């Protein structure tokens, strides 16, 4: 089943991989961030798929991924998620991959590109932050108490996540009508997994990894982003050698939703640009 409403083949599996776009064109791998799933790309992926081979997936624990594959230890660091990205690349035999990572997936892409630089042609980091929590001499924008407050917000709001959703997310072939209900309710996640992903996302520190990136990198910064402020984008730009920083006229943390055309143009230009 295609959740994106565009033609494509659902390779499915652990990461609910969806392949769209013409074969033989440059490969673009779109990675969603914390809080949602591959639906985050629904305004940009169909247009990208006119010119590129577009691969979408859900991180394990999100969307329609195989929740039984989620293990607290494996996904307690971003390395576990980077492993999955590289595994998807290997299984689909992807080469010269342009990786587009939103939010926390920006750092997941950085880790993957450090481990297998030959696999990637370009890195596009949308609203990246290598460290959300303030440190002496570094401003990430948040304190540890802020992160705890987020975890509490997650708890409060998963009351709206009803127990009846659980069998749907777990995959219940006996009740297909529930799948339709799910399709109309994006980004629902098991509360335990959401809490763990929030911790992994907001407490990781990948500042030291940035200098190790040798893949050509574009940083897409929003003009007003409460999660990844401009000075963090500038820090990432400063640390990744030869990187390009583009500031999008977009408010919020999700330019692919609030300014899809500008985001799309920036991504496509960079992928098609000089290697």
């Amino acid at each position, binding site marked *: 089943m295609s959740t994106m409403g565009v033609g494509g083949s659902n390779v499915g599996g652990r990461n609910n991989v969806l392949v769209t776009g013409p074969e033989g064109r440059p490969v673009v791998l779109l990675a969603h*961030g*914390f*809080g*949602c799933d591959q*639906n*985050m790309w*629904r305004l940009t992926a169909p247009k990208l798929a006119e010119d590129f081979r577009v691969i979408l997936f859900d991180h394990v624990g999100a969307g329609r991924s195989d929740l039984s594959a989620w293990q607290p230890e494996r996904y307690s660091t971003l390395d576990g998620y980077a492993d999955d990205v590289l595994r998807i690349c290997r299984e689909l035999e992807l080469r010269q991959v342009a990786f587009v990572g939103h*939010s926390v997936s920006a750092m997941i892409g950085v880790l993957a590109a450090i481990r297998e630089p030959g696999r990637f042609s370009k890195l596009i980091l949308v609203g990246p932050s290598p460290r959300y929590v303030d440190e002496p001499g570094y401003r990430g924008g*948040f*304190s540890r108490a*802020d*992160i*705890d*407050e*987020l*975890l*509490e*917000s*997650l*708890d*409060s*709001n998963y*009351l*709206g996540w009803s127990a009846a959703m659980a069998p749907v997310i777990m995959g219940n072939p006996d009740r297909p009508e529930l799948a339709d209900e799910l399709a109309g309710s*994006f*980004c629902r996640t098991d509360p335990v997994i959401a809490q763990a992903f929030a911790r992994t996302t*907001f407490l990781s520190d990948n500042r030291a990894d940035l200098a190790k990136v040798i893949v050509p990198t574009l940083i897409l910064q929003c003009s*007003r*982003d*409460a*999660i990844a402020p401009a000075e963090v984008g500038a820090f990432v730009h400063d640390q990744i050698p030869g990187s390009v920083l583009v500031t999008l006229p977009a*408010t*919020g*943390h*999700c330019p692919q*939703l*609030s300014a899809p055309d500008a985001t799309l143009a920036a991504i496509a230009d960079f992928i098609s640009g000089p290697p």
Partner: protein
Amino acid sequence: MSGTGPSEAGGLGESGRRPNAHLASLLEDSTEDLYENAPCGYLSTFPDGQIARVNATLLSWLGFTRGELVGRRYFSDLLTVGGRLYHETHFAPLLAMQGEIGGVALELQAADGSRLPVLVNSAVKTSASGAPLLIRTTIVDARDRRAYERELLRARREADRERERLQLLVTTLQRTLLPPELPDVPGLQTAAYYHAASRDEVGGDFYDLFALARDRWGLFLGDVCGKGAAAAAVTSQIRYTLRAAAVYDPDPATVLGTLNSALRRDYERNDGRFCTAAFGVLTPRTDGFDLRLASGGHPAPLLLRADGTADYQEVGGGPFLGVIDDVTFTSTTIGLGAGDTLLLYTDGLTEARTGKGRDRYGDLALRAFAAGLAPATAAGAIDAITVLLEGLGGGLDDDVAVLALSVPRRRPARRPTPPGRRRR
């Protein structure tokens, strides 16, 4: 108008008469007043979140003036930092994708720094062409509700903790009812598999293998009716009765007779617990082992022979144990030669549901499976059965115990035995 006062206009006047519609419209004649002083907060923002309009109710809740908010602040500015993170990662994307979102719990920060728990509903107002123009948000005071939800959360966490404690208790208790590892029987390979159907209840299946003398071993495998704490208590009694009875007189038929009497004596007055069990005594012979076996209502064991065939071994059995007094059991001898493997199992294996029709796995399927394995080793057979059962997934709704015994084939001297996962 004469004779009607404001108190009646509220609809609850002393006379109990409903106010007429005309009067109600006169009192609620200002949509502006309805907007400003509604019993909920109204907030309209531009698509980028900048505040375009706010009602008096929300201003009074937060202690801001209109001028401090309109055109100056963004919706996310009113949130706590943690709430802002939630807003950016969940609320805003969902609103952008769905055009509306409801029932989201957030905390607003008032001008004096105090916090107001609220429930937020938002909808996007679009132009004729579908472009977003405004986000309209209603905000409901949720102080009481949040306290209630916190209580629900606390109760859920407590329930989760209790469940973990229960599962730990069950696992620990289960372990005490099964041998931690099978003893070494020279010249025999042994392996066992146990599947507990539930993590919340102790299973009712059991097995054991133990030395009776230097060259004699006792073994048993059975299934207590029911599961949970009561079944665990019976299982415990069965284990020590069988072990003690075998020391006194190891004839399998006698041992089962003793167990039957013990169950009748102790449980007759209670809930009539009964079980099925096979009890056997192993003695070595020149080319393998003799197993003297008696059965009380238990499924026949399967013999996987060295020549590649597999058959059930009918054991002249007696009835279920613990049901009637003064029953007689008989013992049968099964010979195990080099390359033979004997499987003892509980009916959770053959009664597992398979496939879409939810048919039982069945005796015929098990024999065919065993014939496919033969000639086998105890470890190999248990590995294959483990894979088989894992493949049944949710169809496996009962406990399963399997005990396998095999006599290794003769091999050239000095050749080391390859290590097996469960080999003993």
